[in-house]
């Protein structure tokens, strides 16, 4: 494995000027990592909510707590950015949207649509 490390690698994100599809792509990764970190916490709240009526009340409190709201918004964005970018990748796999103007436009669409979906969910839920 080490012998492969002779290949040129440049992955410093602070020095690379990414095209918009690259920004969308790295956001897809970041969103994935954030959701990975959230797995144990989600399981904890799920378990609590299913234990007893008291547990459900406690879980509701946690899910509705104001100070955790920014975190929930971030995770909700992660979920829908990851989902939308994922749909784009699946379409690219079957050669849909590979051409240049569309490739860029769909990347922009994903970046814009994910926060909009979060806002829409907030509007419907409240």
């Amino acid at each position, binding site marked *: 494995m080490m012998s492969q490390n002779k290949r040129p690698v440049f992955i410093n994100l602070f020095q690379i000027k990414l095209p918009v599809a690259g920004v969308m792509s790295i956001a897809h990764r970041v969103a*994935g990592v954030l959701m*990975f970190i959230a797995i144990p916490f989600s399981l904890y709240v799920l378990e609590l909510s299913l234990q007893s009526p008291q547990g459900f009340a406690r879980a509701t409190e946690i899910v509705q707590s104001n100070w955790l709201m920014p975190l929930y918004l971030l995770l909700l964005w992660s979920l829908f950015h990851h989902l939308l970018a*994922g749909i784009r990748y699946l379409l690219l796999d079957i050669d849909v949207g590979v051409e240049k103007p569309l490739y860029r436009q769909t990347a922009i669409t994903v970046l814009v649509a994910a926060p909009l979906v979060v806002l829409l969910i907030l509007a419907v839920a409240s």
Partner: protein
Amino acid sequence: MSRQLSGLKAWVLQRISAVYLGLFTLYVTFYLLINTPTDYAQWSGWINSLPVTLAFMLAIALILIHAWIGIRDVLIDYIPFTGIRLVVMTLVGLLLSGCGLWALLIFV
């Protein structure tokens, strides 16, 4: 461990799990928005009905596989030192396996 889920197999699994998890996400999102459970009986009644329990168990299993493949790819890209990467990958694998067992305890 990484050899077992590498190359084409991981690529295919990632996409199959993605399709299921995408549909599952849409179902759960719309259900919760339209039918927001307000008490324990409603919530546990929904989760504990057989089709929903099965859908959740399958979703959690696929989330863990999907997360493993995704995190593994990120670690391969960003930790060029085989030793450290192996340690981190082992920890991630243990964490995900532990979460799988925990989820089993929640639903069984």
